[in-house]
């Protein structure tokens, strides 16, 4: 990568200071942006035009320091320290410069090829904070750029600095003069003992002082990374071992414990950052900020918090259901009238009848159903959710709910991963990296699919609408399903708590997480951008995946319905085989088959079920809700079937993408199996239980 002469630049910084926004502004790419810490969990890569040439920008997950604590921070640290980027852009929040400086100082110990971006200047100005950039540059010895990545302020200036950095790289001149942070005299003395030995051991390493400090720090995970990155274990080098021995001896003599040594090292950076911040940052507003904003008092208030959260949930669902109704109908009308036209066109050609039936009644029809049922609710739900995310609502929800997670002995950040799971379970599973403790992370991964993802909403919404709610005026026709949907979501949250609590008491004990969560300031979401990005990126991506999964499923169903074996179609055989299990759970064989074939993507479950019911021959027009309802009723559906189907939709195996993601994240086959077993077992239990109650109550 480096030999091409292309500049490789890493973007680093504390979580939630706008790294991804800056990344997007520089590269024109659309890395997802959200107002909460830990949103970026993987290195993202893009290229950017600097002058006449392009350079590669790498967005690194946010971290508070280079002494990593969690998986995502390890990703960041390893890349910054050993990835050998040509330069590092350290992004700081102007409103919270001091903490950003702590990281800047630590990175400066590793490399001098740094540009500091003081981002969010617009927010800081509103808070009447001014920053003396000249002084900051003087203190740090590296270029400093003030900017607001959201509005594009300072981007050109930054590009200039990047160009300068490029010139410096090739001329090899004009290196910045950086004064590295001094530790206290005793520590410096230890470092003086170690550094020469490190220089002998790693003659090529440019940052021997930093390496020496890390050896002194004795952080296991970092030592492993050093071994991997430099291809040599410093502990096998005689001179280093001897020097370390001397240092330990000196430490013992002065009665300095390892823990204290680490404290002192950390404190050196914190204190220097404090000193610089005191000189550089000015508050022109003497009044102290209020304890808590009015919004926060409502959203996290003792009495108001839970009703407000429920109302938000209800509101989102209501808007999704009410808004999706009409576009859904228009879409399905259009797609099915198109089907009639294609059909009449294709029958006039020489294409054999079975092939055109296969293509149109098999593949096309399922795809049309998936699009018309999914696109409108997703196109409404995703933007709404993204707006809340952008505004900074999600961390507050985690803050409110943390007590419940404490009772389950899990991490409060699981609330964040659950909320990501509402969008897509696979995303939720990846998001679990923000949880530090491996054990609590595993619990969050295993239980994530208990939260219904967006792909399950069409089934939930339409079944609720058809069987659990009577018709009524328009507003009620949307509010009541939203209410029922919200209640079902509460049930799934409850199940998550239950499963987490059981898991945390049965899984082998491990270290509890360090629960420290930042509550970012509320930010006005960029409405226009949110709308465009969430529709184009998330909605179309998920829809594309669903269509890809729908086509083969439609083909399979059609083949199964039309290939005969022993007088009955394969479909009838399969459904007959599943029938007893389905009946036990208050459903039928076809519904179970639908869930099984829906493994590639949850979105196609209902279309597959309908397809299976109608594939026998009766080609009903499926453009009207009442038509779908009729098909279901003709096949023996009652409100009891509906409830069991809803329960099973909430709790069954995660979709294929999620399973693969779980395997990648947990790296163990057995955890993947467990992640499939847990929701499935819960679903089977709940459905069987519900069905038994219905039977005992004298129904069916």
């Amino acid at each position, binding site marked *: 990568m480096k030999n091409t002469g292309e500049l490789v630049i890493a973007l680093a910084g504390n979580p939630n200071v706008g790294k991804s926004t800056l990344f997007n502004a520089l590269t024109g790419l659309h890395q997802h942006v959200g107002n909460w810490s830990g949103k970026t969990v993987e290195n993202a890569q893009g290229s950017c035009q600097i002058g006449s040439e392009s350079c590669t920008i790498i967005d690194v997950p946010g971290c508070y320091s280079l002494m990593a604590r969690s998986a995502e921070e390890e990703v960041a640290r390893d890349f910054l320290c050993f990835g050998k980027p040509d330069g590092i852009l350290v992004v700081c929040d102007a409103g919270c410069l001091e903490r950003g400086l*702590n990281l800047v100082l630590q990175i400066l110990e590793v490399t001098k090829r740094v540009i500091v971006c003081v981002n969010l200047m617009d927010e800081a100005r509103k808070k009447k904070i001014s920053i003396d950039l000249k002084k900051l540059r003087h203190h740090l010895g590296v270029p400093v750029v003030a900017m607001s990545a959201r509005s594009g302020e300072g981007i050109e200036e930054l590009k200039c600095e990047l160009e300068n950095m490029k010139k410096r790289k090739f001329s090899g001149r004009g290196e910045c003069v950086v004064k590295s942070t001094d530790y206290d005299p005793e520590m410096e003395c230890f470092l003086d003992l170690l550094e020469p030995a490190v220089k002998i051991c790693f003659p090529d390493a440019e940052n021997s002082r930093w390496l020496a400090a890390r050896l002194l720090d004795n952080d296991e995970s970092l030592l492993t990374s050093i071994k991997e990155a430099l291809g040599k274990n410093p502990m096998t080098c005689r001179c280093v071992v001897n020097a370390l021995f001397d240092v330990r001896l000196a430490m013992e003599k002065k009665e300095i414990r390892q823990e204290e040594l680490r404290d002192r090292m*950390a404190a050196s950076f914190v204190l220097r950052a*404090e000193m610089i911040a005191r000189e550089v940052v000015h508050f022109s507003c003497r009044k102290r900020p209020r304890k808590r904003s009015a919004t926060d008092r409502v959203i996290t208030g003792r009495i108001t918090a839970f009703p407000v959260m429920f109302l938000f949930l209800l509101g989102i669902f209501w808007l999704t259901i009410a808004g999706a109704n009409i576009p859904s109908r228009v879409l399905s009308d259009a797609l099915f009238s198109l089907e009639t036209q294609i059909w009449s066109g294709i029958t006039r050609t020489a294409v054999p009848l079975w092939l055109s039936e296969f293509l149109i009644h098999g593949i096309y029809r399922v795809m049309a159903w998936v699009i018309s049922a999914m696109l409108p609710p997703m196109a409404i739900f995703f933007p709404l959710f993204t707006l809340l995310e952008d505004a900074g609502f999600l961390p507050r929800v985690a803050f409110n709910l*943390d007590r419940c997670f404490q009772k389950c002995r899990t991490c*409060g950040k699981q609330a964040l991963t659950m909320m990501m799971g509402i969008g897509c379970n696979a995303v939720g599973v990846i998001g679990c990296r923000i949880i530090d403790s491996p054990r609590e992370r595993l619990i969050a991964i295993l239980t994530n699919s208990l939260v219904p993802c967006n792909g399950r909403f069409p089934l939930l919404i339409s079944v609720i609408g058809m069987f659990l709610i009577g018709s009524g005026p328009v507003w009620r026709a949307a509010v009541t399903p939203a209410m029922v949907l919200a209640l079902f979501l509460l049930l799934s949250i409850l199940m998550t708590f239950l499963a987490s609590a059981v898991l945390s008491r049965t899984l082998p004990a491990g270290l509890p997480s360090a629960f*420290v969560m930042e509550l970012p300031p509320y930010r006005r979401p960029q409405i226009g951008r949110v709308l465009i990005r969430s529709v184009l990126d998330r909605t179309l991506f998920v829809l594309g995946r669903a269509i890809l999964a729908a086509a083969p499923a439609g083909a399979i169903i059609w083949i199964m319905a039309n290939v005969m074996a022993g007088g009955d179609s394969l479909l009838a055989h399969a459904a007959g085989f599943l029938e007893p299990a389905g009946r036990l759970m208050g459903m039928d064989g076809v519904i179970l088959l639908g869930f099984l074939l829906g493994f590639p993507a949850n979105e196609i479950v209902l279309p597959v079920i309908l397809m299976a019911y109608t594939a026998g021959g009766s080609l009903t027009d499926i453009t009207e809700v009442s038509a779908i309802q009729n098909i279901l009723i003709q096949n023996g559906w009652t409100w009891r079937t509906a409830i069991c189907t809803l329960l099973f939709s909430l709790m069954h195996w995660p979709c294929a993408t999620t399973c693969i993601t779980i395997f990648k994240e947990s790296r163990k086959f057995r955890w993947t199996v467990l992640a499939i077993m847990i929701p499935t077992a819960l679903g089977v239990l709940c459905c069987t239980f519900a069905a038994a109650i219905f039977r005992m109550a004298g129904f069916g």
Partner: protein
Amino acid sequence: MSQLKSGEYGRILHIGLEDTMRRRLQDLGMIPGTQVECVGVSPLGDPVAYRIRGAVVALRKSESSEIQLRRSRGDGAWK
């Protein structure tokens, strides 16, 4: 620190936590002498939000009770 009420200030005297948690707090700039301000309690009473060096951070009582504070009045510049 867990006894700090909303709106009160304190300065850290001693952090009685070890390993990961101790380092996390140091990353946030919490060392002896750092000022913390309690800004709000979550609806179920735990965790509690504190302003530390300009940022609002939520901590559980199980951790904050291990941090000793000396109550203070809070200096003019809010840090």
